[in-house]
């Protein structure tokens, strides 16, 4: 499974950057979103995969029964997801402001218009 998820993460990084290299503001932001998803997947995968054993202590136990999915990468990814959301939303709005200010969506046109 690591192989497949590694490919998936790689695809997200690759397409994320590919979209950031396109000419439209909107595509750039979508690229950022893909990149952010890729990073989250990478952290999760690198932290080790354990099927369907959520790190939640069962109602009658005092301690987590092994094996369990490592909760630490989960906490990290959760933080990263939320931060990524905030940042992505902000960048999107900023891109839109650039669009309004310049009347253009083509990055080349925006940059040459100065």
């Amino acid at each position, binding site marked *: 499974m690591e192989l497949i998820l590694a490919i998936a993460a790689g695809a997200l990084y690759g397409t994320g950057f590919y979209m950031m290299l396109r000419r439209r503001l909107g595509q750039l932001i979508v690229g950022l979103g893909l990149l952010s998803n890729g990073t989250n997947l990478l952290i999760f995968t690198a932290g080790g995969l354990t099927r369907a054993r*959520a790190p*939640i202590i069962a109602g009658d136990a005092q301690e987590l029964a092994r094996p369990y999915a490592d909760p630490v990468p989960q906490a990290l990814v*959760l933080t990263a997801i*939320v931060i990524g959301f*905030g940042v992505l*939303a902000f960048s999107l*709005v900023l891109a*839109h402001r650039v669009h309004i200010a310049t009347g253009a969506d083509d990055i080349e046109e925006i940059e040459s218009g100065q």
Partner: protein
Amino acid sequence: MTSLILRTGARVLMPLLLLFGVFLLLRGHNEPGGGFVGGLVVAAAYALHSFAFGVAAARRALLVSPRRLTASGLLLALGSGLLGPAGGKEFLASLWPAPEMGIGTPLLFDLGVFLVVIGVVLTMTFTLFEEL
């Protein structure tokens, strides 16, 4: 004003979403859930409401301004962190007056997170609805 079906659906879904959001918050310490996802669900409820009834109605429905909500959440989280030092422990150290009831500063902290998330998402969506 949008369609009748959407409005009615939203009206019925709203309390369920809110309930579910609070539910996720409160039992997040023991089961899947927590302040983040709880807050997101509640925020989604109000976002849906603004789609169905417009943002002015959603603002009315929220009662508090999302900015205030954000600031209160931050203050609550920080305050719960400062309760530790007030009780002679480290910053962010938890105090558990009633651990078996699940009542302790971490819950307060999570509540802060919950409020921040609601406030943030709604600040964003409401502003987007209004300013664009």
